[in-house]
């Protein structure tokens, strides 16, 4: 089987650095454009790609990602397009994780979705609105297919819940850096390091931090204590604010290079 998320994180650990995880939604500016942008991210230094699936009601997302998702849906993106993206990312040499709201997976059937994703080179799924307590069908499907399943812990989580959630994670634990939705923050604050510390107290699994990181300095700050730094809105903004596809890709490559340097300079 192709290289998984766990192996990438292990390799980064051996290099004494954090991994860089980059998010883009499939279908923005269009399906081929989004796939090209994901491949460009891999070429520019992203270790793991999060392939977002646009959803009509993205309640965990702030304005940048919500806008891109809305545009993608208006331009006719379909859930099946995600498999085109995961195949391309895999061929470019990085493990692709799908980031999807639960109803889109439920609608296809968790087993059917997992089977198709595994066949398309997918490494696993991040489920922002599915807690392990409700995830029986997905846990079963991920065990059958060997896909990683990444659940979230948050600053508000109790110790008991952090333990229960991390126990069901495979690949890594997604630690939400602050209470809120996706989007760049001017400062990362202490909440992120605290939640990572609390998570490490109950698990040896890798912990990656998401929400709010937008530049190399912040990436370096988070890389000092996390196994991976997840960047979404700042990358999406490279595409939403670009005049054309070429300048969008250029801005994306520059930001990825800056972030890749950041995750290598944090320790």
């Amino acid at each position: 089987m192709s290289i998984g998320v766990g192996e990438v994180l292990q390799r980064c650990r051996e290099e004494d650095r954090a991994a860089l995880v980059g998010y883009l939604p499939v279908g923005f500016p269009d399906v081929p454009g989004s796939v090209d942008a994901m491949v460009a991210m891999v070429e520019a230094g992203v270790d793991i790609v999060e392939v977002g699936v646009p959803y009509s009601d993205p309640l965990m997302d702030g304005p940048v990602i919500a806008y891109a998702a809305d545009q993608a849906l208006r331009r006719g993106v379909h859930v099946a397009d995600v498999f085109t993206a995961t195949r391309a990312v895999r061929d470019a040499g990085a493990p692709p994780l799908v980031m999807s709201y639960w109803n889109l997976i439920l609608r296809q059937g968790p087993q059917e979705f997992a089977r198709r994703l595994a066949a398309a080179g997918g490494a696993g799924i991040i489920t922002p609105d599915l807690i392990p307590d409700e995830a029986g069908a997905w846990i079963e499907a991920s065990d059958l297919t060997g896909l990683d399943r990444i659940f979230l812990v948050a600053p508000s989580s109790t110790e008991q819940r952090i333990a229960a959630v991390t126990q069901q994670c495979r690949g890594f634990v997604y630690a939400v850096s602050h209470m809120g939705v996706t989007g760049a923050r001017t400062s990362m604050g202490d909440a992120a390091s605290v939640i990572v510390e609390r998570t490490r107290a109950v698990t040896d699994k890798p912990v990656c931090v998401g929400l709010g990181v937008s530049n190399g300095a912040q990436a370096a700050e988070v890389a000092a204590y996390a196994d991976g730094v997840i960047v979404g809105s700042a990358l999406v903004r490279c595409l939403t604010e670009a005049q054309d596809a070429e300048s969008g890709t250029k801005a994306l490559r520059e930001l990825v290079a800056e972030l890749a340097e950041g995750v290598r300079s944090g320790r």
Partner: protein
Amino acid sequence: MTDLRPQPLARPGRFGPFGGRYVPEALIPALEELDEARHKAMVDPEFLGELERLHRTYTGRPSIITEVPRFAEHAGGARIILKREDLNHTGSHKINNVLAQALLTKRMGKTRVIAETGAGQHGVATATAAALMGLECVIYMGKVDTERQALNVARMRMLGATVVAVPTGSATLKDAINDALRDWVTNVGHTHYILGTVTGPHPFPEMVRDFHRIIGVEARGQVLDVTGRLPDAVIACVGGGSNAMGIFHRFIDDAGVRLVGIEAGGEGVASGRHAARFAASEPGVLHGTFSYLMQDDDGQTLESHSISAGLDYPSVGPEHAFLRDSGRAEYRYATDEQAMSAFQLLCRTEGIIPALESAHALAGAIEVGRELGRDGLLLVNLSGRGDKDMHTAAQYFGLIDDAPAGGAQ
């Protein structure tokens, strides 16, 4: 698609396979805190006494029942009795739930409340409770709805609430809920989300039902007093379904009483422009709960449509889904046209102007009444009054000369 449903484990917050808690982990501690607080409150004489006092001295409970014989002549001659939730302070049943949740907010030590609203009934009720109890209040409302319900926006602001117009998506109720949830996940430390109907993540469906249960408890006793028997059918409109769960719940164990929910048929189910979830949809997850959901083949939420903003929602409370699948309740729909006709009929025959939502229940009563004939006895929940709908009615019936263009449509 039964194979996709979660296993019907004996978990709290499930109604058969429906319900659950499909929300980000960040909100789970707040939901657990809320669940604990409401369980404690429901057995605390102090909480129950305060709520009872507010019902009696502020809302105007018990709400009366009114028999409507002139209206009933058009419904096969069956006896029809209305439960008058329209006479509550703020004009609908919504205040029952809001006062109770506002009291809970204070018990949890939170200082800020947020809420979503479609037509504005729930927003006005929440702004009212916040003013009464000294809570900061922010109401999320789709931009389209703020434009067609401008007067209710003014009412909420007059009561001291901040009204946020939500421009994303379809800019209606569903999008207002998305933004309310985004606010909640950001400010959950000091903020309680007063969800306005029997949907959302556990414990909301159960809790909101329990706070409206008083409607059925009162009505059952009142109908027995007046007629000496139980009704043949209890009829209510169903958007999210709070007024219907409120009046249904006390009757669930009365096997001989039919429970009939009326959804919004909009321009007709065949047109696709409707909110008749039970007539044309399959189960899925929206806003934290698993229930019937208008969605496309990919699982993207479809836009619903109804002349009544309060019924214009693509999903429905999970307990209704359970009552429907188990056969205990039956669900029909009334189109915009049928609802407007029933609306006009109640105005002209009884001098009562109902909310457009409640007019759907009246349209259902006309149908069921004709089926049962003269021996039938129907209890209909008149969930709200129609003052807020005069703009829509004026346009629909052409009541105002040179009415300005735009508005309700």
